[in-house]
């Protein structure tokens, strides 16, 4: 073991001791005895976690600091339950870290538990076969615009994501245009092409959280699409199966709370309603068993097309046979955030002067009013 790794492990162990002490002290005092002196203690603990390369712990400590400050400021947004949950997850994570360190884990083996300061990509030995599930655009507060396509890889049996990103100062704020740009210097295909085909990627590199790097020596070759079989890993027969998937993802309190991807063939799309207060558009849909679900999208400035497409889901000319979406459970509703409309027969999309045939329409970036069944 080299000195750097040994030092990192030592700092990690020291951090677990310090964090245990901090959390215990918070619990001993209780909320009503917390003072502003606790805030720099939490910041200092976050620094310790940072230097020990415990990125997830660092972020959670900073979040706990923010929540604690809300309490001290008597902010009406403060929620005791949420504060208790944060402390509980921190404590569980520190315990899990200690256990893995005692078992001899090295820093690189702890990335799933404690994150990493900078995402690293590991080369995949075999060619990676990927089939698209959905493509969506986004704009960040830090002035970046991007397009991300999520794929299912039967090679690794996991979801992987590829993104193209540009600064808004240079490219503007329309992700739809970015979908037509080359993915990288070595891959001249656009993200739109990747999102409408099946590919084999040679020289791929993947991070621990499923980010696919297509830079460097990676190149892609088309392979035969497996059609509906590509959706089998996320296929749900009905709303109850969607609920089951949501439940499966919540057994481990330390697992990231990412909404699961699902594919569902809905029987009925209702009328679209807009809520200006909450900035959402909603369609009440039903699956084949008549169980209700809500298709809900936010009406952020770069997601206006998604709202317009939601209105057209019920239109017989563009009504999809199925939807790829991410599932959420609200208090009384099962919500789906639709991403891709899937058609069993290929539909024609008019794009400028071109017409393209595809089985998928990515609702955030491709208008349904240009689609003909």
């Amino acid at each position, binding site marked *: 073991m080299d000195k750097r790794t040994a030092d990192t492990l030592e700092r990690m162990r020291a951090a677990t001791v310090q964090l245990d002490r901090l959390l215990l002290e918070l*619990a001993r005092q209780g909320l009503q005895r917390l003072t502003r002196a606790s805030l720099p203690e939490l910041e200092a603990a976050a620094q310790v976690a940072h230097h020990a390369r415990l990125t997830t712990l660092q972020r959670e400590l900073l979040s706990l600091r923010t929540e604690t400050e809300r309490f001290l400021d008597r902010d009406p947004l403060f929620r005791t339950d949420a504060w208790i949950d944060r402390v509980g997850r921190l404590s569980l994570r520190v315990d899990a870290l200690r256990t893995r360190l005692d078992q001899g884990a090295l820093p690189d083996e702890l990335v799933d538990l404690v994150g990493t300061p900078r995402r690293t990509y590991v080369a995949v030995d075999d060619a990676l076969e990927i089939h698209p599930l959905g493509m969506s655009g986004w704009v960040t507060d830090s002035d970046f615009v991007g397009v991300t396509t999520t794929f299912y890889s039967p090679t690794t049996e996991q979801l992987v994501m590829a993104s193209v990103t540009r600064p808004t100062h240079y490219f503007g704020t329309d992700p739809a245009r970015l979908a037509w740009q080359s993915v990288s210097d070595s891959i001249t295909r656009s993200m739109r092409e990747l999102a409408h085909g099946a590919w084999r990627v040679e020289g791929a590199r993947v991070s621990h959280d499923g980010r696919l790097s297509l830079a460097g020596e990676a190149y892609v070759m088309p392979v035969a699409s497996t059609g509906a079989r590509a959706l089998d890993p996320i296929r749900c027969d009905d709303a109850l199966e969607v609920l089951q998937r949501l439940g499966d993802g919540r057994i481990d309190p330390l697992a990231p709370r990412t909404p699961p991807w699902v594919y569902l063939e809905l029987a009925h799309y209702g009328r679209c309603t807009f809520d200006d207060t909450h900035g959402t558009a909603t369609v009440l849909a039903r699956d084949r068993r008549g169980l209700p679900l809500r298709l809900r999208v936010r009406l952020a400035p770069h997601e206006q097309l998604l709202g317009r497409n939601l209105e057209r889901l019920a239109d017989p000319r563009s009504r999809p046979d199925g939807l790829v979406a991410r599932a959420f459970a609200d208090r009384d509703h099962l919500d789906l955030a639709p991403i891709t409309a899937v058609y*069993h027969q290929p539909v024609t999309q008019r794009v400028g002067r071109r017409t393209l045939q595809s089985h998928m329409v990515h609702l955030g970036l491709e208008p349904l009013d240009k689609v003909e069944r």
Partner: protein
Amino acid sequence: MSATTLLADVRAALRVLWVGGLQRPDPTLPSELADLAIAARAVGLEGLGDALTTLQVSLGPEHDAHERFAAQRALWVRSSLLAEQLRLHLLGASLHEEAEGTVAEAPVLPPGRDTELWPLGVEVRDGQLQLHCLDPAGGWVTLEDRPLALDPDDLANEPITSRLFQGEVCLGDVLDGQIELVRHPGVATAARWVGGPAFHTRPRLRSASTASPALPALPPGARLAVGTGIVTCRRGPDGWVASSGGVPVAVSPLLAFDLDKRTRLDGTDTVRIEGVLVARGDRRVLLSEGEPPAFPTLDPATTRWPLSGWTTPLPADEAAQLGAMAWPVIGGDRSALAAALAPAASSADLATRWAAQWAGRAIGLPPPDRNPGARAWLGRAEAGSADAIELLRALWLHEQHEPVGATLAALLREARDAPLDDDDWVEIALRAWLTMRAAPDTAVPFLAAHGERLGPGRVLPDAEGLLWVHHAWHVVASGKAELPPLALPRLAAARVALSALPSLDGWRWAAACDALRWLLSPAGA
């Protein structure tokens, strides 16, 4: 007390604990926790009850903050997970309550056809494949495919990336078996049923288990039909011309290659084929021939000869060379072949030595001990101006042991500065080889420029010329990776070899361009 209320009360107790702190917990908490533990056990949540009891006990004065922290955390984990599961369960129950039974608009599962098919053959049209089949009633079915990639020179044996089958398949395997359709979409016309690549289903391949329905003869004058017929092929000045019942039959390059092979030995100009045809307007397309069916329009190895038919009239040493070159394809007694080649491989005559060693590589025959004959020959003053073939052979023999030195190669190259005829491929190969040894950086552009003239549709050199160009390419590419590959269509290369038979030049080129397996049948076949 319902589970929802119980869990809410547990959360409330945790809030009280955390607000007051573990050092001085609220004095009413232990009794409250005890009551909640009883309530938890009453609703069957034994684990939750135990966690509540553990926390209650830990709040006693004899326990410290560490124990209390661990106990409250265990309770928090259990109650949180239970609450989440309960929430999802209640959500599911409420969904059921709001369900409206089977929805009238529920989409019907995609329509399609379920059937078994017996393949008749494949027609290639503009990069699209049409797989013609029969259904159990003898009806004509066509499955269309637009593969992502296919090898036009060997459709039967090289895998294609098929959109129809949603993966890689070998057409030879498809044609050998049966096909099962499950809910496959398609269109029924008056003449046939046509399907294509589908999203939610794909044809499944099965081994042939039952006899196919009978196929009637192709009706005279039919413009869109499939059936049996007789095709008469005649060799004309512009190549092969075929017809069936007075209607032209398309002769593809693969079919022409097969006809050339059939008539190679007997020299006839007419071939009669009984097979399955598809009628398309004013022309017909041959799908298969005979029973069991062969596919000369897809498989370049449809017609092959036994090796004995070619070695018999040859002298013993040449027969041994041919046997050695064919050994990777058809096998044989490797030791006997090596023994037969060994004397010639050590001959003082460079031409004999070269021919034996060239063939011997195919059976792994090592070059004999270094013979200074080739080196001495190259060192002669007149070597540079010698016949290109002789010089190439000497170079080849020398380089079985070590590359020719840059100085010698430069001298030889200098001696060959006469204007180059663009059609003199042997000279081109020689100069490329010498340039590679004398001035490697100029070899690639020299050879690449000439290589551009060897593309599809161009007039190709003879077998001997191609052989040396092929080897010169290998010499340059092994030292310079940026040399683009030789874009020589395999079928065209094989036809050059065929036209040169029975000379050993033809067999050497067939071996070099991997066409032997299209010409020779395995032993016993």
